[in-house]
């Protein structure tokens, strides 16, 4: 029956050509054995010819006791494509740093071959392993097979989304804290909030080991924890000389690009005025063998980034300029709890923390979570004179009273 229906896919076929790996070949490979993928191909060809999508959102689906991890998806043409009448996504929480053994990969493939379409994303935008396409009936059996194999679902909806981190100390000399360990610890700490929505909207943690920010934490996480250091960059002068010999134009490429204008090079020795270094990583990126972050390492915690929905895109802004990121992470967990409390109490539906802070004002927000305002938190002080003073003097106040309190 499915074979008869296909009139071929002349438009999609054109995407099998060319040098970049073809997603059409991937779907076709699965379609050899999966009727779901045959109908997916048919519907996608229809979209290509009509220039419109044919999916519907809606209907809460999931596994027992969880309020997230499954995205309900249905075709709008079930008569034409009955095998994708349900075609739900399952988000599977990936291992920190996206490391796998070949056995783990095969285990995931076997589960998804038995219970779903066989199509995946490795990985989705938030970091999860994406199992693309299964029926409502298969959700619980897939979940059971996953948990027996040691995997669990990730986040969706108004909950803690699956945290993700860069490769960190596993394979990077620049990582200023243990991003994998921190990511795993946070993922386990928030299991309840990850699986059971209790917030006004989503909450994302992302962990980058250095200011290069390889997981785009500053653009995409409600709380962005980005590694940095406080002391001087470590310099290996012999390796600097080696870079110069190998053709690095140190004056133009390194000195000339330093945002703090704190590097000098006399042709033999590189010097950095540590006091004015803004820890941007550029010089280290250009000469990884010669320069390294300092020894006094930790992270900057920033808050509030998000994509446009609903009030426009935001980048995260500084909340804690520097903190040591070490187990048991109590100081950070306590701070997050205060933030979640006020956001849950005062936040509007579908209001991310960044939008909430914009609405109530960063100054008020800091006061509510007991954090002192610091100049590191602003690009510059206010430009307008409309200060909402909370205190002023009344006639007859004795100004000397305050001085005497000391």
């Amino acid at each position, binding site marked *: 029956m499915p074979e008869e229906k296909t009139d071929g896919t002349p438009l*999609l076929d054109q995407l099998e050509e060319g040098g970049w790996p073809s*997603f059409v070949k991937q779907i076709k490979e699965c379609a050899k054995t999966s009727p779901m993928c045959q109908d997916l191909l048919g519907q996608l060809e229809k979209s290509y010819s009509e220039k419109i999508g044919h999916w519907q959102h809606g209907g809460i689906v999931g596994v027992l006791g969880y309020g997230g991890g499954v995205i309900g998806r249905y075709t709008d043409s079930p008569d034409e494509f009955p095998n994708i009448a349900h075609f739900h996504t399952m988000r599977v929480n990936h291992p920190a740093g996206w*490391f796998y053994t070949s056995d783990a990969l095969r285990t995931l493939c076997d589960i998804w071959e038995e219970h779903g379409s066989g199509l995946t994303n490795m990985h989705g935008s938030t970091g999860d392993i994406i199992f693309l396409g299964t029926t409502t009936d298969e959700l619980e059996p897939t979940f059971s097979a996953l948990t027996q194999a040691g*995997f669990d679902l990730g986040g969706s909806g108004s909950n803690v989304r699956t945290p993700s981190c860069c490769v960190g100390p596993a394979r990077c000399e620049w990582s200023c804290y243990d991003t994998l360990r921190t990511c795993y610890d946070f993922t386990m700490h928030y299991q309840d909030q990850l699986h059971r929505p209790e917030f006004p909207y989503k909450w994302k943690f992302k962990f980058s080991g250095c200011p290069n920010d390889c997981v785009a934490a500053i653009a995409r996480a409600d709380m962005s924890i980005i590694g940095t250091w406080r002391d001087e960059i470590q310099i290996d002068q012999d390796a600097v000389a080696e870079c110069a010999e190998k053709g690095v134009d140190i004056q133009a490429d390194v000195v000339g690009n330093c945002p703090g204008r704190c590097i000098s090079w006399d042709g033999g020795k590189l010097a950095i005025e540590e006091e004015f270094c803004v820890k941007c990583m550029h010089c280290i990126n250009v000469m990884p063998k010669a320069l390294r972050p300092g020894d006094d390492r930790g992270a900057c915690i920033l808050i509030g980034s998000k994509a446009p*929905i609903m009030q426009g895109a935001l980048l995260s802004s500084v909340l804690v300029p520097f903190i040591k990121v070490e187990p048991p992470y109590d100081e950070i967990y306590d701070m997050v709890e205060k933030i979640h409390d006020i956001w849950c109490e005062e936040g509007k539906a579908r209001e991310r923390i960044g939008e909430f802070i914009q609405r109530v004002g960063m100054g008020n927000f800091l006061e509510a979570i007991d954090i002192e305002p610091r100049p590191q938190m602003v690009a510059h002080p206010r430009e307008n004179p409309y200060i909402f003073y909370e205190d002023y003097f009344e006639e007859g106040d004795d100004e000397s009273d305050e001085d005497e309190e000391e």
Partner: protein
Amino acid sequence: MAEQAVERLTDIGPPHYEKFLPPIVATNYGKWRYHEVLKPGVMVHVGESGDKLWTVRAGGPRLMSIHTIRWIADLTDKYCGGHMRFTSRNNIEFLLTEEEKIDPLIAELKENGFPVGGIRNSISSIVHTQGWVHCHSAATDASGIVKAVMDDLIEYFVEMKLPGKLRIALACCLNMCGAVHCSDIAILGIHRRPPKVDHERLPKICEIPTVVASCPTAAIKPVMVGDKRSVEVNEDACMYCANCYTVCPAMRLNDPLNDGVSIWVGGKVSNARTEPKFSKLAIDYLPNNPPRWPEVVDAVRNIVEVWAKHAKRYERMGEFIDRIGWPKFFDLTGIEFTKYHIDDFRLAGTTYKRSTHMSSF
């Protein structure tokens, strides 16, 4: 109840990452000394111990079948002692401890159509969304455009001949899933007309207060249509976000006549040299022209080539444009500047030019 049933596990979290680390990573964890890029797609990390770990990075389709993943697992066994990883941009990374296996691995990858590259001054894989393959609010397809653009730009993936890094991202509607809003070049699907309300279906399948509340600009209000309760959209206030369509399938936003693609430039997330910044609008509308979107492919190549020709070494797209100024960017690319390029959302005034610094008149 069934006694032989396996215990139902919940809240176990992901597998502990330590179970999947290659032995050489476990022993050199946190003790890497430096790394070097040896050739396109190949780098070596050297530990304080002197241990060496070679990485071979390959581009792949983000939409991947279990058959391909099994093939990757086989390669991983053959060349890497059973260990690999993926990157935050969906690249496949093979982790090798034997240098002599690098070239045979690369040969086998290429033979099977998987390009090796994406490191240092190159284009890395395009991060992208689901598009027509799986999303309800998509204004365009994601995988198809990415395939067409990367087929065209593949030389910049497999070689390191660009002035700096170039990060391209695609999102299929203005929800901008992924870091599209902070990419050197962002390809963004757009809707251009307000949703069409299906007054027959709406009362049957949607909760009206939820639909009204879903609108960020308060453009939706409840109305009676004949004897049916429904909603009305103030079309002037609609910004095509699809929030209402997400909560109510009777608010169809997808529209083949008007949906299309916009192009944004100059964003970055890294702190290197300059601060992270948002992408800005370069082209407000290009038509949806599947299967190969030639207008989009040409527009992206044009922007890449203008940047590659004029940027200084290490200068990202946004840094390049900040230096030369936006008027010069529009001159050099030949892109037409229109009223739509001028912001009129919140705090739009901060984006007006407030100096006489101009290199192009």
